[in-house]
């Protein structure tokens, strides 16, 4: 869908802006909101670019730089911290060779820290795109990441 079509679907009222931004980001293969889309949106919504950027940049789920196909969000909040979130970061960093906020060279994974995901019952926890993973340890993380890597290699 083009930006124009998305605005047409949601309606160009200001109160639909968050939904429109979600849709723009979700249909971008690199999981982000590109500059061109914001300029187009500005025309369609009759809002200034800075107003749109001002709202969008407030929310952590929106990105303005290209991201990987799989976004790994590791919970950094106190309940997960207590049960070893730091080792989860280290395990992912060593397996994928990237630091927090970065994307792997093959464009598969982006690693992000996040506030509580609401799955503290199985802390330490993370989400990969929409899928939640809990009770993590090094071994489990390696398995999860390898499974995705193999699946993607199979496609290539």
């Amino acid at each position, binding site marked *: 869908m083009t930006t124009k079509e998305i605005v047409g679907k949601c309606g160009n*009222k*200001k*109160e*639909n*802006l*968050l*939904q429109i*931004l*979600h849709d723009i980001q979700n249909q971008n293969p690199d999981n982000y909101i590109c500059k061109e889309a914001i300029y187009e949106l500005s025309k369609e919504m009759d809002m200034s670019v800075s107003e749109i950027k*001002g*709202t969008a940049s*407030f*929310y*952590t*789920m*929106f990105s303005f730089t290209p991201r990987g196909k799989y976004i790994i969000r590791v919970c*950094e*909040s*106190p*309940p997960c*911290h*207590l*049960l070893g979130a730091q080792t989860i970061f280290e395990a992912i960093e060593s397996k994928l060779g990237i630091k927090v906020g970065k994307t792997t060279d093959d464009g598969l994974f982006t690693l992000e820290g*996040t*506030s*509580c*995901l*609401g*799955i*503290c*019952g*199985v*802390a330490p926890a993370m*989400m990969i795109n*929409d899928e939640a993973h809990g009770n993590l340890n090094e071994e489990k993380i390696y398995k999860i990441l390898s499974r995705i890597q193999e699946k993607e290699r199979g496609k290539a």
Partner: protein
Amino acid sequence: MNQIVLENCGRINPEDIEEYIGAGGYEALGIALERKTPEDIIKTVKDSGLVGRGGAGFPTGLKWSFARASKETQKYVICNADEGEPGTFKDRLIMEGDPHKVLEGMALCGYAIGANTGFIYIRGEYQLSIQRLTKAIKDAEKLGLLGKNIFGTEFDFNVKIKIGAGSYVCGEETALLNSMEGLRGEPRLKPPFPAESGFLSKPTNVNNVETFANIAPIILNGADWFRKFGTEKSPGTKVYTILGHIKRPGLIEVPMGITLREIIYDYAGGMSSGKFKMAQIGGTAGDIISSALLDTPLEYQSLQALGHNLGSGAILIMNETVSIADFLTCCMKFFVHESCGKCSVCRIGTKQMYEAFKRLKKQEAYFDELKTIKELAEELKLTAFCPLGQSVASPVLSALKYFGKELAQGVNPDKKREPVTRENPNIVLNYS
């Protein structure tokens, strides 16, 4: 049976509206629309003594009567499902396990206050909740339980879903309204309160998911029935999420007034390792309490008498391996990230707190660090614009009260503060 909110969770198929109806669902709405006036509904909710379950504990019936009193024709009902308090996931499990109960509560609220549109503002991370509620709304509309002329009466009520995008402060009701209007999620000045001027400047009633889930059972069984649960001043049940160093982390619904000791040893199966050291009640914005309070009843009044608050219902249990300075550093990091930046005391204060606790953790704190932390916490409590900044004081002041000695170990009595000069501006620029 001790459950009200979770009575159907895990017992019915949440994606099948017939099962909810089979369990007595939508009966309260039918009775209300056919036989009761909006005033009756508000009176029953008031008499039940139900207070908001989002954290602030405001009487629900009273809140509704404010929105009811407005003469505007367009009013809104909003369900706050932007559950972001770390350690809290009760609303998610209610929405996933029994979505129709929330919708029925919202429709009853709409009838009571005179609104025909409702919104559920769900945080973007809760994909399953969004899916289940979307399906629930469609199914209810098909059967005429939502939409136009519900139960063949004059009453219309439509529910729409709004999806958040990752912001803790949007759980504050006026920030949530701004976010719904497509703005930055910064809180608004009150008054006017939402009951007077809320979403798109129209009278709006905002309640938490758990609060709405209490409504249908109250209307169906009456205020006296509800008052049989809990204590005299805090009737009903409370859904807690219990986590940390315990054998069985998870979700429980228990009568108000149960003690922390009962929660740990009867429900959570005891400590998973080590000895009990402290608990944080109400999420990251909640108070840290020591073993001295293990036998205090958990309900609004007893805690308030001690200067504490029940908050969102998250109870994080920690054993003796947890260092208080390390734990608070993590809490403060959260606040630095989530502070919206609108008021300077929160924007800068959270950052200074974070730096101070990092120094305490490394045992490199200034000689007067604890005093300045206390002053800053009190300043935040008094002057921050919204509850986010004000609540930073809760974990800090309670930790100073119960674990002051341990925190003092991080102080280096010989470390003096350098005078601020042009050459040494003493500004922390690195935000990592």
